[in-house]
């Protein structure tokens, strides 16, 4: 129960409140933070999806850790320096970063309620993402053809898993992207669809962030070592 109010303070004043707030009542007026009541749905959905993305990043962290532990476990097989082709990877990176940009433009188009621009930008995002995935699959196929398959060594197991897990996410993202295009097309700019598109955009950008990690830790460090 709140302490007895001292003179001059509003009733219900809570002197032990951490951080305090401007009205001195011990509760923030922001929605979702106390006095304001539940946050609006748009915030709740995006916030929840952020938490999910954080959990996804924890999963990637586990795969990164495994890669870090096993990168030296080449079992007399191919080493990172012998395998990675930086131009190829640079191309992949370019496609993915560009797709994040077009995805951002698509979000802006959505906010501006411009259907044609939204669909066009999403389509471009799809093409770029699919291009990224195709390049990645080609890299995998080349490696396997050269005998550097995942069962060759622990290093290759962890490499294929980490990079493949990111690729899998991109693949799922592409499927999701298509359903978002279809949803906006058939249902229009409905609130729930806008919220979902926002989640999709978060997801897509998060994959970029993970890729930056993959690019630096796997490819760059691999070539330098």
């Amino acid at each position: 129960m709140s302490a007895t109010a001292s003179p001059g303070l509003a009733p219900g004043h809570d002197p032990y409140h951490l951080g305090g707030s401007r009205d001195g009542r011990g509760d923030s007026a922001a929605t979702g933070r106390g006095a304001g009541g539940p946050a609006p749905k748009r915030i709740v959905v995006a916030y929840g999806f952020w938490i999910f993305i954080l959990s996804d990043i924890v999963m990637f962290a586990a795969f990164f850790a495994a890669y870090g532990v096993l990168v030296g476990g080449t079992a007399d097989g191919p080493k990172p320096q012998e395998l990675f082709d930086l131009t190829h990877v640079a191309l992949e990176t370019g496609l993915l970063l560009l797709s994040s940009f077009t995805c951002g433009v698509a979000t802006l188009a959505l906010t501006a309620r411009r259907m044609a621009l939204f669909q066009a930008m999403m389509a471009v995002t799809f093409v770029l993402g699919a291009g990224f995935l195709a390049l990645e699959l080609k890299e995998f196929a080349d490696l396997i053809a050269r005998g550097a398959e995942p069962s060759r060594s622990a290093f290759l197991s962890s490499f294929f898993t980490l990079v493949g897990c990111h690729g899998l996410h991109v693949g799922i993202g592409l499927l999701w992207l298509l359903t978002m295009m279809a949803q906006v097309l058939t249902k229009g700019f409905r609130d729930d669809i806008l919220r979902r598109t926002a989640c999709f955009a978060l997801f897509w950008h998060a994959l970029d962030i993970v890729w930056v990690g993959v690019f630096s830790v796997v490819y760059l460090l691999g070539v330098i070592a």
Partner: protein
Amino acid sequence: MLGKLTLDAIPLSQPIPLIAAAVVGLVLLGVIAWTVIAGHFPYLWREWITSVDHKRIGVMYCILALVMLIRGFSDAILMRSHMLFAYKAPGYLPPEHYDQIFSAHGVVMIFFGAMPFMIGLMNFAVPLQLGVRDVAFPTLNSVSFWLTASGALLVNVSLVVGEFARTGWWPAPPLSEATYSPGVGVDYYIWAIQISGIGTLLSGVNLVTTILKVRAPGMSYLRMPMFCWTALASNLLIVAAFPILTATLAMLALDRYLGFHFFTDSQGGNSMMFMNLFWAWGHPEVYILALPAYGVFSEVISTFSGKPLFAYRSMVMATMAIFILSFMVWLHHFFTMGPGGDVNGVFAITSMIIAVPTGVKIFDWLFTMYGGRIRFHTSMLWSLGFMLTFVVGGATGVLLAIPPADFVLHNSMFLVAHFHNVMVSAVLFGAFAGYAYWFPKAFGFRLDEWWGKVAFWFGISGFVVVFGAFYILGLLGMTRRMQHYDVADWRPWILIAGFGVVLMLVGVVAQVVQLVVSIRRRESLRDETGDPWDGRALEWATASPPPVFNFAAMPQVHGEEAYWTIKAAAREQLSLRNEPDYAPIEMPINNPTGVVCAFFATLIGFAMIWHIWWLAVLGFLGAFATFVVFAWRDKAEYEIPASEVQRINRANRTTRLEALQGVGRRRAA
């Protein structure tokens, strides 16, 4: 066509699991047949199976947990009775079967007994305590529950079709690799835990979002009931820890299915990495389970002592300290694997530090009781039993955290005693306390006290006898997971442990009888007002059982113990708060997305276990189709008219007013 699945998968040579499974299967079929024939199925489908109401989902979680606890307990009976016959003899369970039983016991108890119970209680109580209508994502909640149920189903299918893992509840490589465990047992483990793990993760995301973003006006962080705080910490741990488990089991699956070399110890693989990754999830997991139980005890002790929780803020700090520390101690599970003295020393110290915030909690509970008018309700008894026995478990934990001692005691019966001591007294007692405490809120009538007390006294004495004996067996040098033994010194203690299990069995039976008796006598056990225990948090401010929308108008919170403040004012003025202005309420429509998803998930799991690739592909297509159908729906909510809200709320106000006038009359007399 059917992958590895042939008729040989049915263990006709092993009568015990077959008979057990046949009984379970018959009972299940009987129940299903009865509901269909008696015409209850449409009701069950509409109101429960497809429900997105957090209260119903919470209840279903708890029912799943109760059933699985009984399954796990029957495994325990098998093991303990086997040990009675295994002195200088092979016992009655062959080793390959015994190994499956102790593995299944651990898995069932932790993942499908303890976890769903805690998640169920959080699901049920947290939105009510926060004064809101539902969790942040109601349909996702249903998906989470059904995925958990799907995992539980797969584990139980392994009784009849194929086999279960023989690796223990943590499938340590290289034993769990395809070379040493070629059967489907480990695959059952992997897919059951992956599927239910996704459910758990989603429910963690859901509850974190709910607690951080969906609270009644005025419910600032430091006004939340303690249970909400511990639920927050526990669910943050789920979000941060479960993905590690998912990744680890994915690596193990890749090793087994595609010949990868994560943990094989050949071609550069490293089985120690499994231990690190697994326990980086595993230690937080024990606090995922224990923290909500601490929250239950806080609610129960404060309510039945008739006092606010002592030093609420220190309790919040202790909870969050445990939340952080629980990520810093995982290495104490393998001191003996040679990390070296310095590393062991660091993790020994971090492990011991956890005892500090835990001690703070114990003192806070003690001081909450001090000077209070204690009512010895069953849930209070479980809480007191917890405090007495848990300190012993904590102390032996600190003992095990001393590396030199652990070199002697690691993987002995002493360790087994330690973790049962803490898991049973915190998690199970917490679950039973919460069950007795919130049962009237969920169903509108109280549980029978006499049978509850029988369950408590037999439960706790059996528990002390069994695990007391285990501690001594450990000190006498007995290691865990032995299938037979010929050391005469151990014999008496094993007999005593066997006797303890009988006591626990009486407790379990009493728990079941309590439920049956209470249902039959429900009229005399009715909770008319919605506040049977003179409670302090907002869940007691609404009717029992609460209407779908929980609160006719969202409560305004002024200070800690939101409901107590309201109630104190009402008692003073002998009148209820003013009636709110009734407005129509929008609630989410029930939908079968959850069960349908879980159906396809079960297909995928089963197909992957048996290498039936086409079925797995079909399952994935089905899951995607479900997602699309869900995304395309046009109406997600329905409206409850203001007049209906008013009718429901007035009924509860009437009984509350009567109770209040009773107080007035007593005061006048």
